[in-house]
């Protein structure tokens, strides 16, 4: 189904902003790993590097399609970009789920990991559901963390993953109604902006 045409261009811009924020989070995680050699920070770094790379590829592909004025020879790029973005997100969220599973060793997490091979087919509504499943698990873990720690930073991270989950619900609904396409991108950007807020707060820590 064709996306909302007027929104083309804005989606790329939003993805470029989200890419920059994902890279900033990855850099912060890398700094932490360099200082502490804590592996969870390395996994966090890899996860956000992948998320950023996927967003960049998808944003660039969509931009090329837009600049080519939707020339049919370039349309496939949009699909390719989306598939690469999807696979990057799949691996990134899987890494995060595995890290949370290792910390909590819960059954639900093991089920999430066990379900992954099914997803390695191609990007479609079913595989979008897998992303939602992974994100719901991550959002639930960050919600538990907020419930325990009650800090603003943990609330921002929970809000970020909740927004990213909502974004993928909108991406899923977009296959039914194109109007959900802008909402998905806005929700995705909002989630990344919450992560940026958390980064600002962390770097102001004395």
């Amino acid at each position, binding site marked *: 189904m064709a996306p909302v045409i007027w929104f083309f261009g804005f989606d790329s811009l939003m993805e470029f902003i989200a890419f920059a924020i994902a890279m900033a989070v990855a850099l*912060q*995680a890398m*700094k*932490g790993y360099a*200082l*502490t*050699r*804590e592996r*969870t*920070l390395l996994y*966090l770094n890899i996860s956000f590097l992948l998320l950023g790379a996927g967003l960049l590829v998808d944003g660039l592909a969509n931009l090329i399609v837009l600049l080519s004025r939707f020339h049919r020879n370039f349309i496939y790029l949009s699909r390719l970009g989306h598939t690469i973005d999807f696979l990057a997100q799949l691996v990134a969220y899987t890494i995060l789920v595995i*890290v*949370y599973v*290792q*910390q*909590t*060793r819960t059954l639900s997490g093991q089920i999430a990991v066990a379900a992954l091979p099914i997803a390695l087919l191609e990007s479609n509504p079913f595989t979008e559901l897998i992303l939602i499943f992974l994100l719901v698990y991550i959002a639930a*873990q*960050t919600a*538990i*963390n907020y419930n*325990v*720690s009650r*800090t603003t*930073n*943990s609330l*921002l*991270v929970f809000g970020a993953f909740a927004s990213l989950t909502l974004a993928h619900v909108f991406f899923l609904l977009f296959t039914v109604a194109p109007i959900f396409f802008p909402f998905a991108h806005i929700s995705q950007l909002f989630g990344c902006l919450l992560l940026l807020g*958390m*980064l600002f*707060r*962390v*770097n102001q*820590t*004395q």
Partner: protein
Amino acid sequence: MIPNVQSAVGRPPAKYRSQFRIFVDIMRVIQREGNEAKPTRILYGANLSHDRLVKYLEELKELGVIQESGSNEKIYHLTQKGVEFLNNFRKVEAFAGAFGFKI
């Protein structure tokens, strides 16, 4: 993370602390004491045996994050490098904590 199991004597198992974490604990005790801490205060504050404390203090001195003063009774201070390290560690701790990761 250590599984939540009870030991044979009915007490929870002691939590493992990495060498890195012990370094941070020692430096935090020194900072908490107003950047002037005697070995006894560090020993109790960081929950270490005397032998391990001596070993770790030597390693921290070699890293240049603490310095020793006093002749009869030794007193330990954080160096500028040590203060900066603790500030950076606090940021990393806040960042990891936001995701629910303990370091």
